């Protein structure tokens, strides 16, 4: 009997902990109020009347937004999450339901289904992968809930399944980088010289890789020579490896374009290990993308020349879109966020202090 008792106690304790998790922050004031109101009036319809306004009050004023985030795999992602959390606050008239999918699509699908049941006003998804969204988006459409995509696109046959997409313009980042390089070289009096360029590409097929490669290619000048392009798969170690082989193969490299910061760090290591120098004072010009905090350190140290931002702060732009939709306006399918670039001619140390990521 003792054991039975023990197990019952254990079970109760377990359940109690769970309640603790479930209700910790949700509705400290509203719940008791509704409970008290119900028994006061005994008739069933009165009960409904008493409870309805309480529920309405919460949802009427606030626009409820469900955000199915990829996860917390990088600084960029964390900054993106923070941007949503600071934009969609109750002071601004929103209630944010946030879900971290732990990099699993199936978790995101579950989250979207749960958002539909909670009757959120808008669903925002940063899809883990591009494929396989038709079924659940159909469910959202059927329920009449608009879906906004953030960061990554979805590969769906019917693009009326989502309202719009918000993200970085990778092609523009690439062409901006080429334009910057042109101005920079002219400033150094090398505008007419033959310039040898190599590119460390991202994971082939990723939208950041495709956009940045194409964008940079569109800004190529006649006197520039693209010696080689190879993938460093967005990682530091692979970037270093590829750069080492480039340095062996091509003795005279003037510019390295790295399609993200991690590969740039690898490339810088490789260049230094080969006894060459880089940065504004060195032989090789380094151009990178993303502009994470560590890249600013690299610019401060004089290793990197310029970095083109991939802005994670999507929250304000999504809020803008939601306000438009609330007003019944139609919105553009593709919405780019504003992006800047940074180079060593700026006071990068001061800029770094002001940045969220």
């Amino acid at each position: 009997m003792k054991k039975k008792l023990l197990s019952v106690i254990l079970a109760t304790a377990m359940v109690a902990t769970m309640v603790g998790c479930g209700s910790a922050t949700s509705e400290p004031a509203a719940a008791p109020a509704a409970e008290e109101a119900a028994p006061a009036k005994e008739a069933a319809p009165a009960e409904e009347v008493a409870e309805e306004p309480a529920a309405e009050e919460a949802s009427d004023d606030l626009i409820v937004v469900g955000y199915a985030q990829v996860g917390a795999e990088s600084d960029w992602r964390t900054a993106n999450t923070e941007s949503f959390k600071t934009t969609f606050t109750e002071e601004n008239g929103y209630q944010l339901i946030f879900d971290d999918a732990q990099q699993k699509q199936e978790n995101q699908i579950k989250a979207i289904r749960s958002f539909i049941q909670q009757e959120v006003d808008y669903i925002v998804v940063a899809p883990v992968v591009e494929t396989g969204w038709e079924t659940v988006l159909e469910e959202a459409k059927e329920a009449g809930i608009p879906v906004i995509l953030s960061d990554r696109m979805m590969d769906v046959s019917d693009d009326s399944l989502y309202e719009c997409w918000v993200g970085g313009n990778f092609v523009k980042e690439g062409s901006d980088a080429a334009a910057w390089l042109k101005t920079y070289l002219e400033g150094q009096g090398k505008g007419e010289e033959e310039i040898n360029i190599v590119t460390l590409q991202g994971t082939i097929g990723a939208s950041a890789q495709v956009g940045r490669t194409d964008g940079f290619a569109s800004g190529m000048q006649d006197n520039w020579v693209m010696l080689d392009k190879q993938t460093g798969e967005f990682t530091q170690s692979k970037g270093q490896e590829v750069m080492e082989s480039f340095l062996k193969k091509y003795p005279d490299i003037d510019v390295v374009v790295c399609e993200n910061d991690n590969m740039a760090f690898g490339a810088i290591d490789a260049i230094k290990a080969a006894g060459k120098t880089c940065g504004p004072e060195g032989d090789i010009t380094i151009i990178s993308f993303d502009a994470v905090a560590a890249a600013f350190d690299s610019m401060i140290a004089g290793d990197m020349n310029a970095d083109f931002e991939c802005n994670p702060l999507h929250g304000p732009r999504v809020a803008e879109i939601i306000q438009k939709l609330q007003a019944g306006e139609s919105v553009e399918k593709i919405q780019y966020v504003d992006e800047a670039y940074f180079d060593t001619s700026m006071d990068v140390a001061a800029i770094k202090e002001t940045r969220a990521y």
Partner: protein
Amino acid sequence: MKKFKLEGNQFLLLITILLFFIMYAIGLIVFRDNNFGRLQVFLNLFVSNAGLIVIAVSMTMVLITGGIDISVGSVVAMTCMLLAWMMEKQGIGAVPAVIIVLLVGIVFGLVQGFLIAYLKIQPFIVTLAGMFFARGMTAIISTEMISIKNELFLSWAQEKIYFPFGGYVNKKGVTINPYIYPSVVLALLVLVIVFIMLKYTKFGRSIYAVGGNEQSALLMGLNVRRTKLKVYIIDGFLAAFGGFLFCLNTCSGFVEQAKGFEMEAIAGAVIGGTLLTGGVGNVIGSLFGVLIKGTIETFITFQGTLSSWWTKITIAALLAFFIILQSLFAKAKEKRK
């Protein structure tokens, strides 16, 4: 008192089922303003976990023999990728593609089963190799994501089976009746078939006997090796079938899919009262194990501000709770002897 001692395993099952209902009731109270009480919220537990239910059922059967299969997650990923690749890149029809992946699953189970039953290699090691192999094969087929656009397949995936009751009007004024997808029906069908097989057939009873005590099963004249082989073949088939259901939910093939799926299945089975030492287990318990996991996930998304990693922590707590409970029962059993 006596009855409780005799039926310790049933008692564990009862606790699991009870726990599920208590948790659900708590959800109904805590989230009563967020539509937690809708039938659809409950049905979504099945809709989103149809594949996992099949995998957990299959895992339970393997665990009862005293074995384990940690390759299932990778087999699910390989199945999805094969389906997507065959239909989208090779132009194979949906029906033959599904038949082919099920055959692949059977062959996979046959090889693993042969190594385990006849060469007496540890199931953990064999299926670990299977896990790496299947994940690797998935990447060999394609490292890129493949989206399934085959119309017949999508019609299976998106065909809603509406319930005639329990509908609601949402605040946009749309009336929606609760619905499930065919994958749910298939998953429950598998559950019922395996339940009947384990409980009422000679083969089912020999699975329990092999897992309970291999020596005495041998002495009883049971063909232990063949029983094990058959179990792993069924397991391979069900892994592929679970993969098919999983694919109906995600409609794509992707290398990273279903990572850690095998562990979720094992957790579901253990919470449902299956012993890793073999001989004890019930697929109904495993179903509730999966539903409990689903309920915790639903809690987290309804709560909206908690980190989703609390799901893992809660599952860990539940696992610890059930393992302790099981060992208490095992001790009580020994005492009686």
